[in-house]
């Protein structure tokens, strides 16, 4: 019994010490996490983690960056929505998760307000970049550059010219009324019940599509003071919402779109010729999706057209992706070098296919720099490169005059849910508009 008691005590002491060690480890890890916000450890000085909702550049090119700078890159491709949650959770908990991370245009105001990302002004010459990067302004809030655009995605209208020609339409309409009438003819001529794709699920795509349609009607949804600019029935925002909801209710848009939140689902519809037009398509889809023979039955049949508007050609909304440096980054200097490399003129053109398909970044839409476009136009290997460069330079505008407000996420949630409910017949356009305006006013008043 005595020896058993000794064993028990020893076992107990061992278990207790393991438990305490585990507790200490747990506390220790929390502590180091908290304390890692600005330190640059020696182990991390030659490596960085990049977390974006994007596939990695080719390994050979990343290896070349490592050779040039001595910085090893760990690329983490996370789904967009998951990444936003991760950024918010990591920033709130003050823990490290990446040295460079996705800065979506819609998060710029939020990150500036919360201080979750470093302003990049001291690392980049904002004034000189503006002429080469038309969408740079989208990433500036209160004069702080919160992220560097690394592509120049913007929303465009894409049509299947073959389907339109079958309906006798060879000159594309320049007004939305004309475009609506043309779509009805296209549907009849091609046996398509619903020839137009527009997002209607409660997802970010529905919000951005409303901004795009508002631009098509010649306006923006918020004023320069971030007040609602869509409450009057004659305002572009109101008219855009009414046009969208009417397009859904009249059957111009597939009924299934009320729950289709996946962008790939829309492009598949177009690529398989189940629809003949996309109103809020991403620039780059023709080259990267519709003209890919293995997955598309409309190769060489689709093209971007100038956006039809209320009385003439309408505008396009910029929808670029950016990259920035979280406040909890361990290797800020390395992240800056990487961002400069990732967004330079030659590499931007390379990601878009300048050096052939082996060096492209999969799903990369278009370069952020006009100088990269010029390289591509000169090479002549990107579909409608000059047309897109023209839209980008002259027509693609930031969705909001003052950048995305800090409360953009709540605003977008209100936009999505109310337009979705209006399309589903659960509320009227007026009710949807009032609900969104009420949310904006409440958000503004609460700071």
């Amino acid at each position, binding site marked *: 019994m005595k020896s058993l008691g000794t064993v028990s005590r020893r076992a*107990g002491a061992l278990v207790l010490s393991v438990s305490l060690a585990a507790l200490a480890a747990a506390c220790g890890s929390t502590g180091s996490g908290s304390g890692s916000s600005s330190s640059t450890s020696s182990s991390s000085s030659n490596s960085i983690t990049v977390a974006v909702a994007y596939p990695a550049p080719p390994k050979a090119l990343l290896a070349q960056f490592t050779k040039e700078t001595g910085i090893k890159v760990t690329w983490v491709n996370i789904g967009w929505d998951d990444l*936003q949650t991760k950024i918010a959770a990591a920033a709130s908990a003050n823990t490290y998760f990446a040295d460079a991370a996705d800065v979506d245009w819609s998060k710029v105001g939020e990150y500036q307000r919360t201080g979750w990302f470093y302003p990049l002004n001291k690392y980049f010459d904002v004034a000189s970049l503006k002429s080469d990067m038309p969408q740079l302004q989208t990433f500036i809030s209160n004069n702080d550059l919160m992220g560097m655009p690394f592509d120049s995605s913007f929303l465009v209208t894409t049509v299947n010219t073959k389907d339109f020609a079958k309906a006798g339409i060879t000159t594309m309409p320049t007004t939305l009324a004309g475009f609506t009438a043309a779509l009805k003819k296209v549907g009849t001529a091609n046996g398509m019940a619903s020839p137009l794709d527009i997002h209607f699920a409660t997802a970010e795509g529905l919000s951005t599509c409303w901004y795009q349609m508002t631009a098509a009607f010649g306006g923006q949804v918020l004023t320069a003071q971030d007040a609602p600019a869509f409450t009057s029935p004659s305002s572009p925002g109101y008219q855009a919402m009414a046009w969208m909801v009417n397009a859904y209710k009249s059957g111009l848009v597939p009924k299934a779109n009320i*729950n289709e939140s996946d962008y790939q689902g829309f492009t598949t519809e177009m690529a398989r010729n189940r629809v003949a037009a996309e109103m809020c398509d991403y620039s780059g889809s023709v080259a990267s999706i519709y003209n890919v023979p293995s997955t598309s039955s409309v190769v060489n049949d689709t093209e971007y057209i100038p956006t039809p508007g209320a009385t003439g050609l309408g505008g396009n909304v910029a929808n670029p992706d950016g990259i920035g440096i979280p406040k909890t980054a361990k290797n800020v200097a390395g992240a800056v070098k990487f961002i400069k490399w990732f967004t330079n003129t030659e590499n931007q053109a390379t990601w878009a296919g300048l050096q052939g398909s082996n060096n492209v970044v999969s799903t990369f839409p278009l370069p952020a720099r006009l100088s990269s476009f010029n390289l591509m136009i000169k090479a002549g290997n990107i579909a409608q490169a000059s047309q897109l460069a023209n839209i980008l330079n002259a027509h693609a505008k930031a969705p909001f005059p003052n950048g995305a407000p800090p409360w953009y*996420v709540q605003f977008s949630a209100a936009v*999505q*849910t109310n337009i979705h409910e209006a399309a*589903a017949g659960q509320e009227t356009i007026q009710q949807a508009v009032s609900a969104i305006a009420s949310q904006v006013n409440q958000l503004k008043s609460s*700071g």
Partner: protein
Amino acid sequence: MLPYLLLSPLIVFIGALSFVPTADTTVEAFFRVMPLDPPNRFIGLGNFRALFADPAITTSWVNTAAYVVIGVTASVVLGTAIAVALKQRFRLRGVVLALVILPWALPAVVEAVIWSWIYNPTFGVMNSALHSVHLIGGYHVWLGLSRWLTILLIEIVQVWQITPLSALIILAALQSIPTDLYEAARVDGAGPIQAFRRISLPLIRPALAVCAVEALVLSLNIFDQVYILNGIAPLGSSVMLQTYVTTFENLNFGGGYALSLLVTLATAVLSMGMLALLYRRTEAA
């Protein structure tokens, strides 16, 4: 002393990963925690008052109640029916048993994606099957247009996932009932339905209680299926989805803490209530 020492790693583990976050959440629920409006400050019941005044939250509670009622009822009834069927001896019983378990083994996200294809209005098998037997005239949009239909269809996905476990628990309880009880009942002239009502049902009551509580907890906390099949649309929103929206979409961490605390309390109270109502210690021998 030794048992407590041996249990201490588990206590430390559960304490660090469960009790500490719960305590932290409880405290933070009384603070305004908004990264867009620092610093954090004590606001008493402010978060709770805001939650009760928010119509989206109220809707999500009502929706969640519907998820719970459908989930508990359907999974217990179906689980019992499957267990009774599987208690019989028939060829390929083992294969059927393995197939029945399969939905339980799949992650909820995977199941929701599978069912999103089934419900797809353009090329989903549901439209195709119903149309082929002339039950519907044309293809329908199943989700997102009608509140109660959306809730029913989403909960079907969860019932599909949780019923197998209920069936297994009830099957185990059924198999533990001595056969001489049924033989005695048969001698006394009882038919199969009477035997089930008078013998099986009372004796499997504890198993039914466990299954009901399991279904209650899972349907009260339904998230994956709602998010994948219905997004953040208020129409079929659950209270867990609203917790996510409040915390990570609206960046109102204090509100999120308060709502998750309410969900925890609701889960604990309802689970204990259901156990007290249904659970009876039984002894067949």
